[in-house]
């Protein structure tokens, strides 16, 4: 019967079982590592100034909280409100005027009060509607229903 191999009875090759690296390897390795470090990984500048880096943890935590709150408050203040809704005039200006007129003529239910509050932004456009020709006036009056009682 073949004798069993026992690891604890085997003369251990200590400290290493493999052949040594080339002569002078460990003398050169630090220089090669330093060269590689200099070439591939420049010194990373710390994000914080030195005095802050060495400050106690509670000081850094308080400062970080202050900066965070300040940023949030500044964002609120500059944004004009928590929801930061955009000004309604900006997107409306991008809509072609034909589409606006079409919407006002067909879908929107406007009162005279709405019309009175409209700013006269496009004067030429407004003037066109405020100074109609006689034919346009006649056409508009003819289109009015005649059976309604006049409002006095």
């Amino acid at each position, binding site marked *: 019967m073949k004798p069993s191999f026992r690891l604890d009875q085997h003369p251990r090759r200590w400290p*290493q079982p*493999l052949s040594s*690296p080339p002569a002078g390897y460990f003398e050169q390795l630090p220089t090669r590592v330093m060269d590689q470090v200099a070439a591939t990984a420049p010194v990373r500048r710390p994000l914080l100034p030195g005095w802050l880096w060495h400050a106690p943890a509670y000081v850094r935590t308080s400062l970080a909280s202050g900066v965070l709150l300040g940023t949030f408050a500044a964002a609120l203040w500059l944004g004009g409100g928590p929801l930061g809704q955009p000004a309604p005039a900006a997107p409306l200006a991008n809509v072609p005027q034909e589409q606006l007129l079409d919407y006002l003529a067909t879908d929107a239910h406007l009162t005279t009060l709405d019309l009175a509050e409209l700013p006269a932004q496009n004067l030429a456009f407004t003037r066109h509607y405020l100074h109609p020709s006689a034919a346009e006036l006649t056409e508009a009056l003819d289109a009015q229903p005649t059976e309604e009682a006049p409002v006095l």
Partner: protein
Amino acid sequence: MEDHEILLKFQNPASRNLAFNHLVRKYQQKVYWHVRKMVIDHADADDLTQDVFVKVWKHLENFRQDAQLFTWIYRIATNECLGFLQSKRRKFFLPLNDVGAELAAKLEADPAVAGDAIELKLQRAILRLPDKQRLVFNLRYYDEMPYEQMAEITGTSVGALKASYHHAVRKIEDYVTNADTPGYSSDEAD
């Protein structure tokens, strides 16, 4: 130079390079041999050892001394080794046995082992272990590292490490005893 001195000097930009040079000189042999036993080939071990120290350089600023410096460096070296072996398998779609066979071929070419039949068989048996178990075996058998320190490096409990080591010893003894027996096969998975 003591570790705390190295760390203190490293924080100062004026003495940073000097401190790091000391660190490399202090730990290079341990790191190299730790890596070399895992990848066998000197060229691979050389590349990985340099990678380990570059990583140490990059992250030493954030080292918080809640672990020993040496343990921390060993952990980086261990992760580099395991990552290297894993990527080798993924790259060439090699199963466990083929990487083991490749490492064994390199081992057989090593003049320090080639002439000793029992030693060669022992080294082959060690190579047949799964990577993590081989790592545990090397740390315990060759480096005589305490289990507590191994637990810090590997992130595994002391009990699990002890079990892994004893299981590894059993598998190695079984292989060296029976490898020449016709029809012998061992379960390599762990």
